[in-house]
């Protein structure tokens, strides 16, 4: 979690009818709060607040004092709007839902559905031993449903990684954080350089030639995420791999038995040459479905709670 130079809103503060309970997380450009509306329904509210600028040392108003900061602040706001636009267009159980968007305290807020659960990153750190082949295939198969919807809306996520995938209590994967998402058909949006996360961003992402970015760039990040689920650590960064590819073969890192087929699926997603990857989320989804999902019979608590509802909840 990057350090925030800024004060979060205090608990109990009422923001446009939502009562703030506590900060849930804090990122480079925002703080996410747990809040409830008058009916008591919980929401996750994302507050645009770049952590590198001291904007709120006290109170609740965001104050941009420095002239240079103002244009930076507003530029970041553009990206925040891109995220809002992107999410507003999508309604899908595997993509976080945006419920409201408004301006207050001299900044902007995005109200999202609150999903109970943990990020995939949390589970990788705590429960990786329980990531069986069946579990990984299921989670990513369903995640591809959401990503297909994203791509169908001419959007690229461009920051898929374990920290941006949520597993609800019932085991439903939900794609979060569209802060890097770009509407591919909008030239304006493609002019904004998306941020990236080393290890998860595709090699072409670093070069930032908008023409090279496509659904295949998200496929790389999905591959890197699956790699991390199995290996516990992300692969070598994409830009370095282009110089000298030293990616550690997944087989040597796996802590349990996975099929050759699964390894080769992950490897194909992680091809440096984007032409060699699965080109769409649907392509990857088909690959994940081809191998029959092995029944998991181990009496592990985490999977026990997940595996039963998984099949129920994901069939639409």
């Amino acid at each position, binding site marked *: 979690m990057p350090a925030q130079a800024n004060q979060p809103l205090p608990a109990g503060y009422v923001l446009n009818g939502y009562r703030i309970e506590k900060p849930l997380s804090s990122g480079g450009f925002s703080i996410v709060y747990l809040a409830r509306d008058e009916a008591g329904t919980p929401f996750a509210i994302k507050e645009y607040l770049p952590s590198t600028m001291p904007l709120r040392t006290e109170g609740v108003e965001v104050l941009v004092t420095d002239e240079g900061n103002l244009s930076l602040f507003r530029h970041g706001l*553009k990206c925040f709007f891109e995220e809002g636009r992107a999410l*507003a267009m999508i309604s899908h159980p595997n993509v976080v839902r945006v419920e409201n968007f408004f301006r207050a305290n001299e900044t902007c807020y995005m109200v999202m559905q609150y999903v109970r659960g943990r990020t995939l990153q949390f589970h990788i750190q705590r429960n990786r031993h329980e990531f069986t082949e069946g579990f990984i295939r299921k989670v990513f198969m369903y995640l591809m449903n959401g990503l297909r919807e994203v791509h169908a809306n001419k959007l690229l996520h461009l920051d898929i990684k374990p920290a941006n995938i949520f597993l609800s209590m019932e085991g439903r994967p939900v794609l979060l954080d569209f802060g890097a998402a770009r509407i591919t058909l909008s030239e304006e949006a493609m002019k904004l350089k998306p941020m990236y996360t080393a290890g998860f961003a595709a090699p072409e992402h670093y070069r930032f030639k908008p023409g090279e970015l496509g659904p295949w760039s998200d496929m790389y990040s999905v591959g890197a995420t699956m790699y991390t689920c199995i290996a516990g650590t992300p692969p070598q960064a994409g830009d370095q791999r282009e110089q000298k590819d030293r990616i550690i073969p997944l087989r040597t890192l796996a802590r349990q038995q996975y099929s050759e087929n699964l390894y080769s699926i992950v490897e194909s997603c992680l091809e440096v040459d984007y032409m060699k990857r699965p080109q769409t989320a649907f392509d990857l989804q088909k690959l994940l479905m081809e191998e029959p999902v092995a029944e998991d019979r181990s009496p592990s608590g985490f999977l026990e709670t997940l595996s039963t509802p998984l099949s129920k909840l994901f069939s639409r």
Partner: protein
Amino acid sequence: MRFTIFQDSKVGDRQGNEDRVGYSYSRDVLLMTIADGMGGHDMGEVAAEIAVGEITSRFQQEARNRLQRPFDFLVSAIQSAHRAIVSYADQRNMFECPRTTCVACVVQGGRAFWAHAGDSRLYLIRRGEVVAKTQDHSKVQQMIDAGRLTSEAAAKHPDRNKIYSCLGGVVAPQIDLGRDIRLEPGDTILLSTDGFWTQIPPNIIGTMLVRQPITQLLPGLITEAQRRAQGESDNVSVVAMTWENQEDDNVSDTRAMDEEQFATSTNTTQPLDPDGLPADEVTDDDIERAIAEIQNAIRKVPR
């Protein structure tokens, strides 16, 4: 929709006109706005101009068919006009921010919705009686409410021009909402600036409206308001609408208009150019537009 509309703005005995009035309507929705600018050096004029211009253009962006939530629209449009005035002053390093009052009224689905800040007024007149009105955000109104002043004494009170809510001030405007009122045929909604309402008591308007339509009555009343001020007339502005019998074929029906077409009339002089801003700069308008766009998208996608 079948209605009759009238508006006019007169300079009175002042040097310039700092009032702005406007209306805009499409097939299904009508907006009326009035603003009375304050501040020296023509600056009140700028504030009123921005207010009517901004609210009208927001209306045309958001009311393509009809407004989803008229009160939300009114509040957000007035707030964005406030911010536009503040940023206008900011960009020019103005020592004092120009200010303006504002009343805006939306008529849609046979109902009226309004919001105001300051001491420009709205009256809803039904069968000769004022059945609803805005409460001025003024010092004298507060004193009247507290029982410390009579309406008659208020007209001569030295602080009668002091208002505590306006657009462009240091603090964001206090915006009061009217009730959502179902209109009956013959109802008249009249918005006016203090140059008009301080001179013409509402009961007179009511009585005369029983006999004359607004188009015939109001030009005379505006002249009368200036005359009564005895050489010291403030700017006098009115925009008013009479809701007609919706079956009356003698009154034109807005449903004859094309979809997404707006008929607009204001006394604003021109769209203000946001000079000096680099092309890539994100303006307050851009922000408001982006938010409106996102909110629209949220509402459109079934959830």
